[in-house]
Every structure is written in C-alpha cells, then in structure tokens.
C-alpha cells in the first residue's frame, strides 16, 4: 500500500472514532423541529407573497434587495474576468476538427432537452423548486457543450458572439433594476411586490414581480456564463500573437 492509502485509512478511522467518542460522551440530540423564523416563512408565504414556494419568496421578496445587490456582484466579477483576458484581434479559426458524428448527433438532442428544461425551470420558479439561478446556469451549459463538440467557430458563424451576449446581459440587468425601481413612481418603496404588481395575469398565478425577476435573472446568468465560456475557448495562439505583436 502506498503512503496515500495509509493516510486515507488513518483519516477515516480517526473521523469515525472522533464521532463515536463525541456521541458516547456528550450524547447530543439531532434537531427535530424547524426554528421559529423558518416556521414564520413557511406559514405566511402564500399570504404575503402569494407564491407557494417559500425559497423563491425569500430570495426575491423578503430579502429581494439583498439578491439584487448580489446580482451586481455577479456582474462585476464577470466583467472583471473578461476585462483581464480581452483581445483586440478578430478570432477566426481555420481548422475545425470537432468530435465524432455520434457525439455530434447525441449532443444535438441533449442540447435541445437542456434548453427546454432550463426554460421550464426558470419560468416555473415561483410554483416549483427552481428559478432564475438554476435555469440560467443550465442554459449556459448548452454553450459549454456546443463549444468542444461543434467548435467555437461554428458558434461564431451562428451569430453567437461575446459582445452580443454581454449586450443581452446588460439589457437583462437594466430590466431587473427597472422592475425593482418602478414602484417608486407610485410613492412606494423600491422592491415592493404585491402592492404594485398583480398576483394573477389572465388567470395564471405569477406572484407579482417574482416571475419577472426570475425571467431577467435567468437571461443575465445564462448570458454571463456563456460569455465566460466563449472567452475561455479562444485558443491560446491568438493571445500569443497579441503579446508578440505588442512588443
């Protein structure tokens, strides 16, 4: 046995023995009921926010301001990353290898399924678990899958460029901010929900601003991570030429 395996066995035995000693000596009780604050949120979410989903209600209504500022942090981090690795050269790749035709066909089916499920998760976020964050990350995975299987150049040929993605992202963030600020014109506080937005539209429950927030957050997260994927997949030769040309 190598030293790593012996270290792992020592670690496992140590962990189990520490847990056993603590359990025998102190005999702690596992928690059996939710704390009072959690019970408040569970009991009042349908009345306060008119959303059956307590988590989305907390994310976008009870603590909505918090989430909007975190979205700004997300925007800053992605813009900072893209600013570090920017290039002035136009990217065009001559060789396109891609993967085998079996992988291409399968990926076409899977990408369609991922896009469908991402939209379903994002637009149903106020009724079932899900929302803008998981849906947006799921949609970004389609771009992440297309890049190695069909190559970066095929995406660029289809018109999916990083400048356009960043534009979509900026528009989505602006819309998110507008949804947050719009109640001010009627003299209400920013990020108010049910006093300004209707809870039902055409007989369907949209839980006020929750549906809008989920939609715009979905677009913002998806386009941001897709832009990161496109920047990461630019071959290293482009940057090497840029550094050489600059000197």
């Amino acid at each position: 046995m190598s030293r790593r395996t012996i270290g792992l066995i020592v670690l496992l035995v140590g962990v189990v023995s520490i847990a056993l000693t603590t359990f025998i000596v102190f005999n702690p009780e596992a928690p059996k009921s939710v704390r009072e604050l959690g019970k408040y949120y569970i009991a009042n979410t349908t009345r306060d926010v008119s959303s059956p989903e307590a988590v989305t209600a907390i994310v976008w209504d009870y603590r909505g301001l918090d989430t909007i500022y975190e979205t700004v942090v997300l925007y800053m981090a992605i813009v900072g990353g893209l600013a570090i690795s920017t290039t002035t050269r136009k990217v065009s790749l001559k060789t396109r290898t891609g993967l085998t035709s079996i992988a291409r066909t399968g990926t076409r089916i899977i990408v369609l399924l991922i896009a469908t499920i991402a939209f379903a998760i994002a637009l149903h976020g106020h009724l079932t678990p899900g929302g803008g964050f998981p849906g947006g990350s799921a949609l970004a995975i389609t771009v992440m899958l297309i890049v190695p299987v069909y190559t970066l150049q095929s995406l660029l040929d289809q018109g999916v460029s990083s400048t356009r993605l960043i534009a979509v992202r900026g528009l989505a963030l602006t819309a998110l901010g507008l949804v947050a600020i719009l109640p001010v014109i009627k003299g209400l506080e920013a990020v108010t929900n049910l006093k300004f937005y209707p809870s039902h539209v055409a007989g369907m429950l949209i839980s006020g601003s929750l549906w809008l927030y989920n939609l715009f957050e979905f677009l913002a997260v998806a386009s941001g991570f897709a832009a990161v994927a496109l920047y990461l997949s630019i071959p290293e030769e482009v940057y090497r030429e840029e550094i050489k040309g600059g000197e």
Partner: protein
Amino acid sequence: MEGFVYVLFIVVLAVNALLSIYGIVYRRSLVKKLISLTILSDTIFVSIILVGFIFKYPVVPPVYIGVSGEETYLLEHGSDPLPQALVLTGIVIGLAVNALIAFGVIQVYRLTGTTDAKRAIRVLVEEVMEE
C-alpha cells in the same frame, strides 16, 4: 442513531474544511489552490443547509401543492427555507468569483510561464529588477 449521524456529519464537514484549507495554504500550484477554494466553499454551503435540516422521516421541501390540511403538515415536516434561500445566490456568485480567479491564473501563466505561486513571484521580481 440520529445523534451519531448528526455528529458524524459535523465531524466529516470539519475535516473536509481542514483538508481544503491545507490545500489552499500549503499547495504551491495556483490551479490546486483554485480547486481547494471551491471545495471549501461547497463544504460551507452544505454545513449551512445542515442547519435547516430536521431529522424526521418524511422531510419535504417547503413548497405547497394545494392539498387540504397541508399547512400543518408542512409546518411539521418541512425543511427550513431561510438557509436554502441564502445559499442559492451564494453558489452562483461563487462560480462567478472563481471564474475571475481562473482568468487571473491564466494571465499569470501567460506572463510568467508557470503556475507555481513562488516561482511566478520570483519571475516577476526578476523582470522588475532587470528594468
């Protein structure tokens, strides 16, 4: 039995966090530091969710279906929504910050030709001294 698994949960999460802190501090490769950093943040997210979990048989997510008499059932058997809501944004923000760090690591490799933290600093210092 529940108590033992609860203690084991806490001990294993603590050991995971210690292992990843070892990776962040003592490993010299910047990519290994990045991997350890994500493992640390994931461990912290799981331990936050553990705060809101209750050790009962049917535990359900805090979502209403529309069945009669459901509110008492959810109050009795639902998990705590507050830690879940706090972690939900944190995961995505964590990925964005890690992407920023990844771009930084790639840029360091382009400038110095290495991802070893100490050697990269040495290369940069030598370049400054030559000028």
